[in-house]
């Protein structure tokens, strides 16, 4: 008897029968391959019909800014066009454009204002630019996926947060050479130099990899600039996606302000209808005042910026006015800047007895005490800077290719600077806008980007998506990078395509709203299918495998055990993780990982491309490292035969997986 392919869940008791239909698997994989170009062509035809074929690189997507010390020049890194722009703040005109590396995401200015440093996330380097001539001086190789960067106070040392490397490059700017890398937390993204120059603060986007049934704990990594070493790792409990960092002057309390998202991912998602499921706020951190706490100790408070019935999703940029009176936080999913009266914030914090300070992290009525204004700005506001006289704030509207200029005296958007992006909006761009837009969700609690930060990344959390029962069917978030050709979707494999995944089902079960129109769904799918994994840094640029990677490849594609016995096809790595179809067989398999809390036993086989960058693993995220998959969760060889591998061979297998 053959297992009906339509019922693609293959239970353990049916493994022998399915053994006979491996040929079917291959045929269907090939058909899928043939089918995918057809779909892509159809989508492309629709694009052509609409006259919207602009490639993504034509858009600018301003994402990081610096203002010259005299306030005259606004320097803007544009991630999609691979450019840095210079805008005359007086005339509000773009005067110069310079092409840099791939995907510039961060920008820093030397203390004397004469040099710009731009991190290029997809080319793993930093472009050094003469701010006067706007010419490139040199390009400095750094770690993997550089984003946030800052110089030290002397301007001799550059610190660069490497997202993919989970570390921080320390660069000698005089020699243009990387001195060392300091281990950060998980996915370090943005950095800031302390006002006194003694510290570099590094905000990590993702929480530490930890047990899926515990609330997340994120890390603020603190570097001592004198020794150029990590001085402290501050736990910020219950939150993820810490972004930009601003430090209030000492006269305003000296707090560090860092926007974050505070998920209740272990509660069933149906609770989103009651609100308070995904909340957005900021960490308020300061060094311990009490000497008894010791150096390197920090007090961490958390406040929400949401209101009870309206959320300000996806906090991103933060800046403070020079006198520290106002702090401004961009809500990149709500297209709003929240203006915070820092004196009131401080009073609120100081009025809370220590035992009640933790409550603030969950109180939706707190923002009304200190948020002075909610200023609507352009689409997807990211970075924000304030002028040295405190008169203006500039906000990068990533999805509009504009900069909103806020007059801090009138507390209104005074003007909008057009950076010169295309006026024509392609389907892909339209989908990208939708991806970042939280207005489609009930009360604006979340956008697609809320759980897929950094444009498609898995947030590393397990979510209770499937049932209203607490603790049941919790599943790990999945990546959106390079998912073209990996259908079906969801861990239960129930969504045959992205249109199903992101259409009415998303509206009904996730957003709890009217959802996207059919046109919007198609636009969103166009965007999602265009998301691609960045270059894999584990693989040499020339494609040459290391010895360990080559040995691991042999293990992955083996059909015999180490003692020469034939491995049944279904127990071979490459059967279920077929390289023909992005290292997934696109069916559900029971690999013995279901727990009593799972309703189903078989789960959609995940693609393996980029697997090294997205721990934890397995459907419920209980494998924190790749090793765990085999050392802890494959006791009966149901997840492929691996018990014959020794430790060195398992290491080799993992080295191969890391290059996919």
């Amino acid at each position: 008897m053959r297992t009906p392919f339509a019922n693609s869940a293959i239970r353990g008791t049916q493994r022998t029968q399915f053994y006979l239909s491996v040929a079917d698997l291959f045929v269907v994989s090939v058909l899928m391959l043939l089918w995918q170009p057809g779909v892509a062509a159809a989508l492309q035809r629709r694009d052509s019909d609409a006259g919207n074929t602009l490639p993504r690189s034509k858009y600018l997507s301003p994402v990081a800014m610096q203002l010259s010390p005299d306030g005259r020049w606004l320097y803007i890194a544009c991630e999609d066009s691979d450019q840095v722009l210079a805008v005359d703040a007086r005339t509000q005109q773009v005067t110069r454009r310079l092409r840099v590396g791939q995907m510039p995401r961060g920008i820093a200015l030397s203390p004397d204002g004469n040099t710009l440093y731009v991190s290029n996330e997809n080319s793993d380097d930093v472009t050094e630019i003469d701010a006067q001539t706007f010419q490139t001086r040199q390009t400095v190789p750094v770690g993997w996926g550089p984003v946030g960067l800052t110089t030290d106070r002397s301007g001799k040392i550059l610190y660069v947060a490497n997202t993919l490397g989970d570390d921080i490059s320390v660069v000698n700017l005089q020699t243009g050479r990387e001195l060392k890398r300091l281990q950060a937390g998980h996915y370090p993204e943005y950095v800031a130099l302390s006002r006194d120059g003694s510290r570099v603060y590094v905000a990590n986007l993702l929480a530490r990899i930890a047990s899926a049934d515990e609330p997340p704990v994120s890390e603020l990594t603190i570097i001592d600039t004198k020794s150029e070493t990590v001085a402290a790792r501050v736990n910020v409990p219950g939150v993820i996606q810490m972004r930009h960092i601003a430090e209030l002057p000492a006269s305003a309390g000296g707090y560090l302000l860092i926007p974050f998202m505070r998920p209740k991912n272990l509660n069933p998602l149906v609770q989103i209808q009651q609100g308070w499921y995904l909340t957005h706020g900021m960490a308020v951190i300061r060094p311990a005042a009490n000497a008894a706490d010791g150096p390197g100790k920090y007090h961490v408070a958390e406040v929400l910026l949401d209101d009870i019935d309206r959320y300000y999703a996806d906090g991103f940029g933060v800046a403070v006015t020079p006198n520290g009176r106002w702090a401004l936080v961009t809500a990149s999913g709500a297209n709003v800047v929240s203006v915070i009266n820092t004196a009131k914030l401080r009073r609120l914090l100081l009025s809370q007895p220590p035992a009640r300070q933790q409550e603030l992290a969950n109180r939706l009525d707190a923002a009304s005490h200190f948020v002075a204004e909610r200023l609507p700005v352009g689409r997807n506001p990211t970075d924000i800077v304030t002028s040295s006289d405190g008169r203006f704030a500039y906000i990068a509207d990533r999805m509009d290719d504009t900069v909103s200029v806020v007059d801090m005296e009138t507390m209104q958007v005074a003007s909008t600077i057009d950076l010169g992006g295309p006026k024509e909006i392609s389907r892909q761009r339209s989908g990208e806008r939708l991806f970042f837009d939280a207005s489609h969700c009930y009360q604006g609690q979340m956008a697609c980007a809320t759980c897929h930060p950094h444009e498609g990344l898995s947030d590393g959390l397990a979510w209770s998506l499937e049932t209203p029962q607490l603790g049941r069917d919790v599943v790990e978030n999945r990546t959106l990078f390079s998912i073209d050709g990996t259908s079906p979707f969801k861990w239960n494999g129930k969504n045959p395509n992205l249109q199903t995944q992101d259409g009415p089902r998303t509206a009904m079960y996730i957003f709890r709203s009217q959802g996207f129109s059919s046109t919007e769904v198609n636009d969103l799918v166009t965007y999602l299918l265009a998301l691609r994994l960045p270059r894999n840094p584990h693989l040499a640029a020339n494609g040459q495998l290391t010895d360990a990677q080559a040995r691991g490849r042999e293990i992955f594609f083996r059909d015999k055990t180490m003692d020469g016995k034939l491995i049944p096809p279904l127990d071979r790595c490459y059967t279920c993780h077929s390289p023909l179809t992005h290292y997934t067989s696109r069916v559900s398999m029971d690999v013995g990982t279901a727990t009593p809390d799972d309703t189903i036993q078989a789960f959609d086989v995940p693609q393996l491309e980029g697997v090294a960058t997205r721990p934890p693993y397995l459907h419920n995220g209980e494998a924190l490292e790749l090793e765990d998959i085999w050392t802890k969760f494959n006791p009966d060889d149901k997840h492929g035969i691996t018990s014959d591998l020794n430790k060195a061979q398992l290491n080799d297998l993992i080295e191969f997986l890391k290059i996919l």
Partner: protein
Amino acid sequence: MRHLFWIVGLLIVTAGVAGAQNPSYYIRWVNYTRANGFPPGEVYCVTVDGNRVWAGTGHGLVLLEDGRVKKIFTTKDGLPGMAVMSVAVDKQTGAVWIGTFGGLSRYSGGQFTSYTNLSSGLANDLVYGVAMQGRYVWVATTAGVNRLDPYTGTWEIFNESNAPFEEPWAYGISVGAEKVYFAVWGGGVLSYDLANHYWKPYTDPDGEMELVLYRNQGLIHNIVSSVSWNPDTKTFWASTYFGLSSYDGRNWHNYLKKDSGLPSNFINAVQSRGDEVWACTQKGLSELNTKTNTWVTYRPDAKSGRGDILVSRADGSKHQMDSATTLAHNYILNLDFQGDDIWVATANGLSHGMRQTAKQSLPTQRDKPAPNGDREK
């Protein structure tokens, strides 16, 4: 003016002669034991990092700052195992790498990150040695040697399958500019050439016989407990349970109790710098000055509680002294330098030794010839 010149010159010469006549010894000791809040029992390792000292014990990792115990870390703090066997400090990043009997750990910014056999590429959770070589972390385990590249997260394993390990049980690591040396229990010393990526074994030609068969024969024994590369003399020293060996790239030298100042052939660890070689034996701590071929052995006198210092000179003469303070125990496991000071791991606590000239600080010394050389305790 001329007279002043001659007076100053005379003073300098006099001071030099006086210094030569009054050699300095480690006669001032401060001990950290259970009596003053230190974890009880053995201290397995000690590593100096500026004004900080890390001591690995059977009951956790002790951090001392400026001579005071600052913190005792245990598994409750995130250590993967209570028995801490080795500590290495990454001078570049400030991270502290800790080898335990529950895996490897990195301490950085006040947080531990652990690496175990099940959750990482670590060859085995019984970690005896750890050392930094540039950005790489070398780890000695009972199942071979690991090299971790923290930049890429790549773990390499070297054992009998891909390197000349007669036994995979690696104890200690010492890093040179061109090679990394490994002490292997039952396998002698192995070196790894960093530029050419090849391994070379150094073993005892008579296997595990406790004999020196011929001059320049090689390692004294294959059960090697530690190895220390001395960059000043370009020599590696290997401690075994059956004597001490050195190799300078051309010649081997072996040292046994019977023909040296060693108090015992059972040596737990060796450290060498400049002209100094320190042997941590089961019957005291011995220093060999390779320039003068003088041995000085320090150990506590169990009866008096005072320190017993035995000096064995190249001409065969021996002199014995005592000191008011001494090592916490005569069973020595490890040692590290802090400038001119030494920190010593013993079977019953940690000892901090400070060098002083004999006449300055030994008013009660008995500077007399030792009866028939060494005294067994």
